[in-house]
């Protein structure tokens, strides 16, 4: 079972596919940019001059200098160190949201597409219902109930945005279900579960990977927006959205407190968008997302 997936992924990563990917300059640029951000996140403990929560009242709101390359914030904390640690949070949050979304959306799409009939109608109705809520508004409603906090924001954002997975997976499953190899598998008496897991899922993996890459940036943008409003990460977490929330009061005195966290949100979202666009061209040229 796992072996099958590994083989499928190897197939995706074979030379031909990779060579094709390399012809997309923007995709390569996205990959390099993303690698740099991941590098910063992984080595944060070594490359940051200070801890992200180290307060220094004697050096408040200092402009960027050699000592503090991104300046300091209203509590005298080093903005560079906070931004670098923030990369960890942003990447984690993006990954978590995508995992939860796919965890909800993919099984529902598989069930709907495979069984059809009433199950499909029921799942489609729920998907339409969730689709009907405007994203940030529903996330706000959920955070109102759950209370503020990064975990709750991750839950809220995942709950509002799994519907695209269900739609894409359902459509792809429908297009595969009537193919010969599935009929053959049924004929030799494979169980439904085994057909879904061994034959359908590996074949619809490419669009799921593309969709995941393209939903990470919106997950990061939503969660930072909620943190910016004060409903997400709480101090002293070096979350980029929260840094913008705190820096907002000092925007005219110390613009660097806002400029750098926002720049890194943009760069991170950009790297995933560039990568996702190229992956879509390479893995699944015909795919369109509504």
């Amino acid at each position, binding site marked *: 079972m796992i072996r099958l997936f590994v083989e499928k992924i190897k197939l995706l990563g074979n030379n031909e596919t990779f060579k094709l990917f390399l012809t997309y300059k923007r995709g390569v640029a996205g990959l390099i940019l993303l690698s740099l951000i991941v590098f910063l996140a992984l080595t944060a403990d070594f490359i940051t001059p200070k801890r992200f929560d180290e307060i220094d009242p004697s050096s408040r709101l200092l402009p960027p200098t050699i000592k503090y390359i991104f300046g300091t914030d209203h509590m005298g904390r080093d903005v560079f160190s906070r931004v670098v640690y923030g990369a960890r949070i942003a990447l984690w949050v993006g990954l978590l949201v995508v995992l939860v979304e796919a965890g909800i959306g993919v099984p529902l799409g598989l069930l709907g597409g495979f069984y059809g009939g009433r199950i499909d109608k029921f799942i489609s109705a729920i998907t339409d219902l969730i689709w009907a809520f405007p994203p940030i508004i529903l996330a706000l409603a959920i955070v109102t109930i759950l209370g503020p906090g990064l975990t709750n924001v991750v839950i809220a954002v995942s709950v509002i945005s799994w519907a695209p997975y269900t739609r894409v997976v359902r459509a792809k499953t429908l297009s595969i279900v009537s193919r010969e190899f599935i009929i053959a598998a049924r004929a030799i008496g494979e169980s439904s579960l085994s057909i879904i897991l061994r034959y359908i899922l590996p074949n619809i993996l490419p669009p799921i990977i593309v969709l995941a890459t393209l939903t990470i940036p919106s997950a990061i943008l939503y969660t930072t927006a909620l943190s910016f409003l004060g409903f997400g990460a709480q101090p002293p977490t070096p979350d980029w959205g929260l840094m913008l929330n705190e820096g907002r009061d000092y925007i005219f005195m110390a613009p660097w407190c806002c400029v750098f966290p*926002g720049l890194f949100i943009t760069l991170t979202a950009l790297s995933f968008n560039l990568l996702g666009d190229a992956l879509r061209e390479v893995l699944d040229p015909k795919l369109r997302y509504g």
Partner: protein
Amino acid sequence: MELLTYVTKKLLIGIPVIIGVTIILFYIMYILPGDPIQLLLSGERVTPERVEELRRAWGLDQPVYVQYFYWLSRIIRGDLGISIVTKQPVSLLILQRLPYTLALMLTSIILSYVIGVLTGIITALKRGSLLDSILSTSSIICYSIPGFWFGLILMLVFAYYLRLLPVSGYEGWHSLILPALSLALPSSAYVMRLTRAEMVEVLGEDYIRTAWAKGLNKRRVLLVHALRNAIIPVVTMFFLDLPWLMGGAVVIETLFALPGMGRLLYVSILRQDYHVVQGIVLIITVLTVVCNTLGDVVIAILDPRIRFERGRGV
């Protein structure tokens, strides 16, 4: 006639979705901690008998589903409840702020669609040129930028350094320029990408080649034959965009301290003024369903093929 059937079908599909939405919203309020009667009395000292009486008067002694129908019938009559904080009717609070939000959304929609469609057409016609690659790359950058950060930067540059526009609050129509720009930026980038992709596809179609071959002039081919077909998905997107912009408006109105519905939602969440939150979420969600349905209807009018295909399929 065929169109009428299609439209009716679409409208009928919208109704269960709206009912589902009201059930979810009612249930969310129902499971929220806190006794609504205590909230209503806000600390007033009354006898237990009086509390019981109020509970009966508000129908709170009834089973959940009966309470839901009470609530629904009030909603349909336009009664969204009373704000716990200001003691004003929620519908009044919302109506007072609606014009600012509508003005903001209208401005940013016009901005994003004018910019998006124009650059989309230009890049599609000049495909592969330097201009195309510059504009296409900047569009990806544009929708990677968080709107609220872009708003902060605009505020810093135009309101603080250049002193051209007000920093925040509402002092007339020029207060809407910076918020509308921050809201329009990501959306215009999406519109541009979509317009470009559709134009490129349509320009490769046989009927466009036929139009060229017939010797039609350039303007006629591009505007009448190509754009008319390429614009259809862009129109769908317009309707899907409206509710999405509403979400963005919460963040942007809060940032620029505009007295709109989005800011009201933000403030009400902070004050735990649940009836206002519920009222706003309800209105926006119903609007979303209406927009989606309208989108389907407009598409069916613009593109007869859709009516036909779907009419057969479903």
